């Protein structure tokens, strides 16, 4: 059934056509037993080639004229399609005019991986604990976490983030850093307008100056 379906579709698309002697020779290759569920397009070729041989036995002038007419019809079909596009361009046009649609209809999806950001809240606090898991997860060293030791008020030594250096120039947006981060400190932003004149400007420091680690909310605060 499937075979017949394809054959009829080929017939519709005007596949009935010339076959070179080369192809008639190779039709000796018989379809092997390739299981029941394989589509044997080859059969269609066989049928077509047999038709072709039959046609050859008929008057060749008739064939000649038929071929010319067939050629014109098949080319006219393509011409009609492009003409339809040409005439109905306002309907079929799919262009998003990028710089004009920046504020309106731009189709950058929410999840699009544009650059890694370290979100800060209004108190200039971030969630990064400088555990360097993201740095280890990064396949090509696009992340450098520079931490420093500070002494907290109660005299304990603590490691905090000093610089979160992000090499946008080599980042490949594989999402592994964000997948690895246990604190959900970093995110992907869907910005993409990042072209620069100078390569060194593509190395960002993600933590803002003076920012500090956001304290984990105590149980009381969580409840409230």
């Amino acid at each position, binding site marked *: 059934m499937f075979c017949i379906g394809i054959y009829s579709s080929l017939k519709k698309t005007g596949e009935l056509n010339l*076959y070179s002697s080369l192809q008639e020779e190779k039709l000796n290759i018989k379809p092997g037993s390739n299981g029941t569920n394989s589509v044997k397009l080859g059969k269609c070729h066989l049928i077509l080639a047999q038709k072709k041989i039959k046609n050859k036995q008929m008057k060749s002038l008739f064939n000649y004229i038929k071929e010319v007419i067939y050629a014109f019809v098949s080319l006219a079909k393509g011409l009609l399609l492009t003409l339809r596009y040409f005439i109905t361009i306002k309907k079929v046009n799919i262009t998003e005019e990028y710089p004009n649609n920046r504020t309106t209809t731009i189709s950058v999806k929410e999840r699009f991986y544009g650059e890694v950001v370290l979100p800060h809240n209004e108190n200039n606090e971030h969630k990064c604990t400088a555990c360097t898991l993201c740095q280890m997860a990064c396949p090509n060293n696009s992340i450098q976490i520079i931490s420093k030791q500070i002494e907290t008020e109660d005299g304990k030594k603590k490691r905090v983030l000093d610089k979160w250096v992000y090499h946008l120039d080599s980042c490949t947006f594989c999402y592994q850093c964000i997948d690895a981060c246990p604190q959900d400190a970093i995110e992907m932003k869907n910005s993409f307008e990042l072209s620069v004149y100078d390569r060194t400007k593509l190395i960002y420091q993600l933590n803002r100056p003076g920012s500090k680690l956001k304290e984990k909310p105590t149980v009381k605060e969580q409840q409230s």
Partner: protein
Amino acid sequence: MENQPTPSPTELRTEEFVVNIGPQHPATHGVLRIEATLDGETVKNILPHLGYIHRGIEKMTESMPYKQSIYLTSRMDYLSAHINNHACSLAIENALGIEIPARAKAIRIIMDELQRLTSHELWWGSCAMDIGAVTPFFLGFRDRERILEIFEANTGNRLTMHYIVPGGVMRDVLPTFVSDVKELLKKIKGYRHEYDQLITGNFIFQHRTQGIGYLSKEQAISLACSGPVARASGVSCDVRKHYPYDGYEKLDFKEVIDYGCDNWARYLVHMEEMTQSIHIIEQLLDNFPTGDFRTKIKGIIKLPEGEYYQRVETARGELGVYIVADGSNKPYRMKFRTPSFSNLGAVKPTTVGLKIADLMANMSTIDLVVPDIDR
């Protein structure tokens, strides 16, 4: 070459000359260099030169943990990035003996088949462009962009995703995923007749492809061709049928085989495979499983010592991932058997003796992706 009779002294003899096609040439789709010996317009010999985009991916994987090396595979055959990731993830999962959730399997197969659709649509456009028609290129990209929108919305990247990871997929798909894909398939199906109207039924295109680029079944097998190239020569080699993975065995689809052995047969196989891909996706969408999208696995994957091989069917043919593990978190050796590399061998037997324009037609229907050749 060897079949050609030696010309008699009285016969007209012309001088052969060598033309370097590539590394920068619009028809090579990348940086393949082909040294073609021409006699006038007739191609006498072909010598492909590789390595212009050799990036050492196989060597790089040896110094990278398993999790990280997967993302490199999407840069090999970037037109089937999902499928490459899939192969790598499957190999690791098989080695670890992990069973992944049903939802992840469904998402993986849908993404694979959508990727196959994008690849074949791009192939359709660029094949027509190599033969000289420019408009099909835009039509192919119109439909491809719709699929890429779904990729972008769900995986976050348009081309080189790192979405299929060991244990499942990186993130869950959007809630609107199923309805989006359904709408997409409806649109793509509606456009198929335009493809036939513009190119399949076109007299010039048929004459440029029919009987051109003959690759016999024996040649296809001996050159280890796979994918549409081999299937157009009558070789049954669909990995999805013969070595099913991730639930392909439960799906109803047909392996597309043609016995035409020429460019036209390869064209038909590609076109029919698109129909089959749509059919596969439709089956999965009807009862899309719910549940987990990823099995939790350890942060550092260590494969047990041994050798592992996994093959999948990319848009170009069979991709094999061969891992030799030594028990650490990095592979001792990772080897990719890429389809384009084997299919590249088909360029010479199909082209020698034909015209130079046929070289471009053959190369486009054989559907080479150059970074897939060089890795």
